């Protein structure tokens, strides 16, 4: 990964996290309710950015690109997909970090960098 990609990764992952929490709450209340067009627009934007970062190798499902507005995805559909994306992003992150002095650091252009990152969650090759 490049430094630019790491920056983009951190932004996208935190956005996905926020959306996952938000839609997850709605899903708990009404799992079969449709997500409105406004929310769907921004969910799709974040998913597209995630797709770019993940590439074909890390994408959760090859046939899924983004939500179609006319398919009227429900809150539970969206929560499920966001969960998958978060897991795949975590997998990508786990594969691109190294343990350094007392912490984990991003590996940038094949070398350990000085950008700290959190401990890997559970995915490690």
């Amino acid at each position, binding site marked *: 990964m490049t430094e630019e990609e790491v920056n983009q990764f951190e932004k996208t992952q935190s956005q996905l996290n926020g959306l996952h929490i938000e839609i997850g709450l709605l899903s708990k209340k009404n799992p*079969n309710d449709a997500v409105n067009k406004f929310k769907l627009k921004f969910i799709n934007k974040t998913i597209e950015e995630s797709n770019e970062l993940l590439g074909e190798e890390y994408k959760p499902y090859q046939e899924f690109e983004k939500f179609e507005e006319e398919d009227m995805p429900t809150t539970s559909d969206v929560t499920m997909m966001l969960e998958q994306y978060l897991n795949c992003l975590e997998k990508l992150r786990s594969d691109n970090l190294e343990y350094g002095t007392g912490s984990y650091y991003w590996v940038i252009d094949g070398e350990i960098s000085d950008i700290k990152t959190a401990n890997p969650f559970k995915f490690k090759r």
Partner: protein
Amino acid sequence: MYKTLGFKWLIQAFCPASTFVLADRYEARNPQRFIHATVAKHTNKQQHNYMSIIRPRFNDFYNIPLTQEEVDFAIPFLDEDIPLYLDPFLLWKSPSMQDNSLHLSITNSFNYLGFLAKKGNEKEAIEILIRASECNEVGFGNSKTKVGKRIGNNLAKSVTDLFSSIPQISKSGFIHFEEIQLLVDNFSKDRVSDIACNFIQSFLVDYTIEQCEKYNIPIEKTVLENLYDQKSFKFTTEETFLPINPLTKTPILLVPKRWLRFIPWINVDDYFKSFYLKNIQDKGEAFPNRIKLLSFNRANYDLIKTYTEIKEMQFENCKNDPLFNQIPVISAKRKISTISRLPTGKTDNADLKYEDNTCQLMASLVYPHLDFAKEQSRTESGMQIRDLIFYNNRSTDFLQEIYDTYNCKQIVMELKNVKEVKQEHILQLNRYLKDQFGSFGIIVTRKPPPKKVIRNIIDLWSAQRKCILVLDDTDLKMMTQVFESKQRYPIEVIKKKYIEFTRACPS
């Protein structure tokens, strides 16, 4: 001043019809420049097969998509009346000075009848009242023929007699002439409405022309035989341009929907229940019959005045009635829960209960995108019943698409409370898919169709380019869910099914 009987100068000063016309009167009533363009554009289109449309509205004839929600007026039907009435009280309570002035105009025109009667011209007063008692151009009421009858000489005389028999009216006239319902037998709500419409007909002509220009509705040269002239206080004939009912070849007048109610704010039932029984009727005393009650009212007009004043004070509760009322969310949830619990088949009339609940639910869910036309409509032979019919107003991209692709002017929904949709159900709906329905129809049923039926539906599209969608309980639940949450429109669930259908069709 307002109460004073028949002051011609007062009417002329405040509310001649010309006050509401921006341009010169002749120019306003005869807007030929735009007529030529509009008529030329629509002449050929008028010939389209509107006759097959169930409960046709006048815009269906001209092929102009309008939803009742978007327009300011009540869309008239071509072959029957609109079941609403103009309530003069709504003009009185309106915050609009224009509406108030029109109410004043109605009241003054009506009080002028008393002025005539007192002057000894009772015959003329009766003649005006009889002519004012029916306004076929607006088409309000419950008539299936669009033609109403005027009141008779005796009833008209009973009304004009009020100006001499009741001292308060003789002195000051009416403020709310709908009080006559409480004073004279057989003077019903449709008379109140028609008299009010006739006295402001000049305004309605201008309003109709304005609305027709706005929505490109063609208007034609016509003669109004019964137009009330506010200047001379007489009915005259006027040549003008108005939309024409293609069935009866008579002119149509449009009326703002904000003036319409199912029953007038001041009405006999309300007077009896909310006023007479509470304030006048003694305990244990026998209820008076209608005639006695009206005689009592005439002899005790002060009580009527008190009732009217109470109604005036409660004016904020007086609202116009829409042509269609959506059921509230709680009621929609109750209906979907009832539907879900119903067994399939005909056990304990489950099929009738299913149809009843689904009709009410569906009509509300798809409103305002689809205006409800009719339930349980029979085919021409009378042998088969189509369950639900909606006007396709082309109000969304999906509805425009099915109009363009499948020539669907009205949408038919067939309700099937069956365990499994079968080929025979598809064929039954397929038989309806002609004329106004084009090649598009919807089956509403309990469970998703089996694979073989889905294949049959796809084959039908492949062979005849007919589109049949199947909505099941899950779709109805989702429609109800979004109806409650307002996150999406329920009609989008039908669009979703349509997209799924098109994806399944061979490319």
